């Protein structure tokens, strides 16, 4: 085989493999949407699940997932922003900073099930919060924090050096420079990254099995007092999220239509994650246009 034929064969093989990947994604999305979309209805999205009968919905699970996402982000964003700003602005290059960077890297590659076990031991048992949304949010914070730190660090590193130096030269303190000059410039990148991280949190299940729990009390959607045990807003009640629900009905579901429920719930989960993805993309482009005045 001469060099030219080899070149042609290799090109075809590589294009074929790339095509396979695209087909896998299309097949995956097609399968989930095809199986699941027919099962999605307003009733399915709002009614409570049934254990043995057919016709159960995913209402409480969907609400739990969204509420947990909000709680997690309320804890993650301030912590992640602070730590990311420290890493990019205050940390002096050297051994200490390098080891902190290693810590972030290690934390981001911890298996989520180990984070879940840690949550079970520390938040649920030792701190005595019990299986609750709050324990789940803390566990997800551990899981999400390294990502948030990295997003902030990269966004801050993308701010033009001149802007920072001009602000410092005008006599502003470093913190004022960070909050009033650098953060607004870095904000589009931070928000885009945060939306993508939110999609990851929304689909996470392994870290929640032993922290937010695998069951949900009968929620009373007319009771909005956060202290009542049946109120949807109470952060100290156990809560099964959508992703955990999919896992549970696949492994121990007794309802005769468990397969359809799993398909419908998967479709809802995937659609939400897609929404997050496209939202982040659109928002990034929108902000880019706004800040750079390009079309």
């Amino acid at each position, binding site marked *: 085989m001469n060099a030219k034929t080899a070149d042609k064969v290799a090109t075809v093989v590589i294009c074929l*493999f790339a095509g396979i*990947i*695209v087909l896998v994604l299309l097949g995956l999305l097609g399968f989930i949407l095809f199986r699941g979309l027919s099962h999605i209805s307003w009733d399915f999205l709002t009614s409570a699940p049934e254990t043995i009968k057919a016709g159960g919905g995913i209402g409480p699970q969907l609400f739990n997932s969204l509420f947990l996402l909000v709680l997690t982000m309320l804890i993650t964003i301030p912590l992640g922003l602070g730590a990311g*700003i420290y890493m990019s*602005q205050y940390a002096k290059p050297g051994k200490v900073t390098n080891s902190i960077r290693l810590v972030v890297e290690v934390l981001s590659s911890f*298996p989520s099930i180990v984070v879940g076990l840690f949550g079970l031991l520390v938040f649920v*048992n030792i701190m005595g919060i019990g299986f609750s949304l709050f324990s789940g949010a803390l566990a997800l914070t551990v899981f999400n924090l390294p990502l948030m730190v990295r997003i902030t660090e990269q966004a801050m590193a993308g701010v033009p050096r001149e802007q920072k130096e001009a602000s410092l030269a005008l006599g502003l303190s*470093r913190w004022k420079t960070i909050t009033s000059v650098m953060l607004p410039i870095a904000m589009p990148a931070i928000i885009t990254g945060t939306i993508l991280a939110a999609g990851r949190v929304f689909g996470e*299940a392994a870290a929640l099995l*032993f922290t937010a729990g695998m069951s949900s009390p009968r929620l009373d959607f007319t009771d909005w007092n956060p202290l009542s045990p049946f109120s949807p807003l109470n952060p100290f009640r156990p809560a099964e999220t959508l992703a955990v629900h999919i896992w549970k009905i696949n492994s121990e579901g007794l309802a005769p239509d468990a397969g359809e429920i799993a398909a419908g719930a998967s479709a809802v989960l995937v659609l939400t994650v897609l929404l997050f993805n496209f939202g982040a993309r659109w928002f990034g482009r929108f902000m880019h246009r706004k800040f750079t005045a390009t079309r």
Partner: protein
Amino acid sequence: MEQSAVKGQKTNSKSAFMKPHIREEWVGRVYTFVCILVLIATILAIVYFVASKGLSTFITNGVNIGDLLTGLKWDPEGEPAVFGALPFIFGSFSTSLLAALIAAPLGCCAAIFMTQIMPGAGRRFMQPVIELLAGIPSVVYGFVGLSVIVPMLRAIFPGQGIGILAGSLVLAVMILPTITSIATDALAALPGGLKEGSFALGATRWQTIYRIVLPTTLPALLTGVVLGMARAFGEALAVQMVIGNAPHIPRSLFESASTLTSAITLSMGNTISGTAHNNALWSLALILLTMTFIFVFIVRVLERRNHR
């Protein structure tokens, strides 16, 4: 005003500390420092708690470390209880290695396609595909594996369809985005002169790719593969759904098996804290944690070679 600023810098006394911009600076410093301390405290707490719980199997329950790592029989509720975790360790290693073997060529080809063959279509078309694959939650992969891959394998091969191969296929799709995006970054960062030099000498594109591009970026490509393996090693639910969860070493790829993560997922909720069974599960978690450190170490070594 200029004078006072100079004075403030020089004296650095208590009055200087009370100046609003200095106070503001301290607020920022303390706030960010507390955040980073929380981060460090978290990782130390995770390592401490998992290690102390995981080691109590050996200290309190008197199980031999060697027996746990090499024992073939896992019978935690039996009389006497036997804790041999080798089937789980074998399951974890075989699924993640096989997944990496399937995903690495695919991922590298996708990266070559995106950077060398069709950069335009690659950026516009492949990039979103890879990002979407990365965004799909793991339980959904497990669900699709259970309802597509397992029946397919059952129809083609002997056995029930569940097992190592089903787990590896699901994991391969899951780690594909990790490998592809790191490989793409590495290939795109290659200095253009190298490739142009090769073309100028009359080499074809394929000769350039596998004589010049791939050898130069090899450490970075391996970094992607190792990171993908680390993700596959720690993945719990998707694997648990398709692997069958039988606690023994399977004789074929199509026989029910178990991984470290699937064993923890299944039994942790049913055991009481402090019992030997529960502690043994924490030991499995400790093995997972140790492997994470080893993976991170390998990645560090590869990155150092890459920078040289």
